């Protein structure tokens, strides 16, 4: 009885088993074929990450006289992470990064959207203005940094223009005033990255089916109604992508800003990247740097996962 059942079971199983074997075989082939790429990914992404995690749990510094793999001798557990929690300079930098993002990304988005709407229609000289508009994006950020550094000098062209306009001598020390320096840095970021937003949104905008817009017009929708009921919903995915790109990039704001202010005056424009850079190059406590970077990576990853989920949900709805 039991033997019969066993053989029956074996017979019943035979076909799926064969399928599984076949599946295994093709999976093995796939694995072998992708192995070089996997090893590459391992060394580019996984290995540095593990190394970072390891160092973040120690007090290791390049001045400690130990090679990085010997950092375990300076093991301090989660001390770096608990220090981080009470590091006011870290939280300050994080706050400024958030402020810059909350101002810059929406500004870039709205300006980019307005420009994209303008450029979706034809007007004389469109190609010329289009090229001009894209130029900031092509400027090397360091060069843009020097440009704005000079522009915002107290004896610089901006103050000259303001003097001419107002008729009085204007000598605003843009980059030495904590608030104005932050504003200057934001202006530079908006100048440089609005074109990217514009480009992405324009691509989305021209992809909106014209006949649906015409249909809406025939049904009596005014331009604003057309924009809110047809254009924006159709652009939802591309808007989310554009915002995600700029949020991630803006969080890492560094080059232009560092050249303009070096994070100063004091720590007035010190964003998270600048802070990490300073701790790395000046304080040289790399165990701590690893902890900061990892903490930020985790926070950003969680945020990205949420954004992706939202995007997937939007796609689901659209399909």
């Amino acid at each position, binding site marked *: 009885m039991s033997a019969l059942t066993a053989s029956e079971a074996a017979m019943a199983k035979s076909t799926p088993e064969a399928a599984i074997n076949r599946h295994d075989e093709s999976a093995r082939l796939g694995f072998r074929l992708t192995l070089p790429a996997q090893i590459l990914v391992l060394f580019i992404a996984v290995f540095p990450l593990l190394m970072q995690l390891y160092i973040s749990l120690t007090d290791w510094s390049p001045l400690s006289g130990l090679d990085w793999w010997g950092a375990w001798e300076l093991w301090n557990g989660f001390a770096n992470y608990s220090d981080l929690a009470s590091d006011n300079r870290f939280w300050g930098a994080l706050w400024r990064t958030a402020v810059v993002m909350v101002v810059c990304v929406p500004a870039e988005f709205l300006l980019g959207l307005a420009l994209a709407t303008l450029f979706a229609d034809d007007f004389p000289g469109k190609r010329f203005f289009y090229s001009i508009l894209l130029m900031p994006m092509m400027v090397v950020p360091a060069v843009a940094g020097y440009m704005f550094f000079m522009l915002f000098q107290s004896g610089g062209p901006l103050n000259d223009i303001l003097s001419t306009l107002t008729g009085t001598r204007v000598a605003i020390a843009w980059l030495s005033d904590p608030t104005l320096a932050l504003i200057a840095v934001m202006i530079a970021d908006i100048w440089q990255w609005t074109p990217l937003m514009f480009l992405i949104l324009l691509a989305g905008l021209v992809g909106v*089916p014209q*006949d*649906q817009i*015409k*249909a*809406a*017009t*025939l*049904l*009596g*929708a*005014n331009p604003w*109604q057309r924009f809110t*009921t*047809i254009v924006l*919903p*159709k652009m939802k995915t591309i808007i989310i992508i554009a915002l995600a790109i700029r949020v991630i990039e803006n969080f890492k704001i560094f080059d232009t800003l560092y050249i303009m202010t070096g994070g100063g005056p004091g720590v007035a424009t010190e964003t998270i990247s600048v802070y990490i850079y300073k701790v790395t190059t000046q304080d040289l406590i790399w165990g701590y740097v690893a902890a900061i970077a990892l903490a930020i990576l985790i926070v950003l990853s969680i945020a990205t996962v949420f954004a992706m989920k939202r995007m997937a949900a939007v796609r689901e*709805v*659209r*399909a």
Partner: protein
Amino acid sequence: MSAIHLQNLVKTFGNFTALKTMDLEIADGEFMALLGPSGCGKSTTMNMIAGMEEPTEGRILFGDRDMTGVPMGRRGVGFVFQNYAIFTHMTVRQNLAYGPRMHGKPKAEIDRRVGAIAELLQLTPLLDRRAGRLSVNILQRVAIGRSAIMEPAIFLLDEPLSNVDAAFRAVMRTELKHLQREFRQTMVYVTHDQLEAMTMADRIAVMDHGVLQQVGTPIEVYNNPANVFVAKFIGAPGMNLIPGRPAESDRGLVVDLGPLGVTPPLPDHLAAALRRSNATVLYGFRPEQAAIAEDGEGLTLPVTFVERIGARTIVHMGQGGSAVKAVFDNNLRVAVGEMMVLAPDAASVRIFDVATGKAVGGRHG
């Protein structure tokens, strides 16, 4: 409801003339088909009626209201696009409610109107479905409903059946005709498919190269084509047109078709019209309106090809430069290479002037 008057309508795009001086009267509640090959100006005409394009010259009147300069959102026309232009990111309900919502109608009224139109078009069970995932026939109903809910006096349809497969087209044709009777609006229907125009329209406006060729009921256009283009374009296959010269015989005026022989005597009114001129003419008759001559008197041609399409047999004949087709029952016994003597039905013979392309002898039967 509203009549449409097109007066001296001209539309040019740069150097290209899409429409040359068109005059057309579309009566209130009439189903008018604009029929012609692609590029004939029919869609341009329709777009100008809708207000998507402004005429270069001329006027469009709805009833006695001049529509010049009235933007498309204010013309009160319903428009069904070739691909329906359904708002795919909305539900069927939102699509139907779009017009009233944009006009700021109260919610209760919108709900009532959407309910009524959905009931009429049998869309009620689909109201909360996403429009992006519906089949073509439902999309068409949504497109019609979305326009019809605004109760437009004029309904414009731009080749609405061209994306539908042949089997389904027959179903949709009857459905559309039924809907037009339901709504009783003035309908303008653009198509390149004569079958659609023939079966649905009250009158057909045949167009070619931006010129209105003929306006008439389907039967008029079929029976009495105004010119060579209409004669060839309408009917499947189109009218046979054979060049020849009028000649006197002892039994009356005939047309000498050269190698094909001499035609039977022409009816009196055609003979009378032809005697006045002596130009080369085109002798025309419908492939369906010819019989095999029992007495051996008629056009003698060799059969070049036999096309059997179920109910009917189309016999292709040709000699010299002339090709002739004739349609018979499917039980016809004929082989390629045989000589066939064809006698066109005297009453259905039409004569066209080669020089002008126009029909000779005016309208008849």
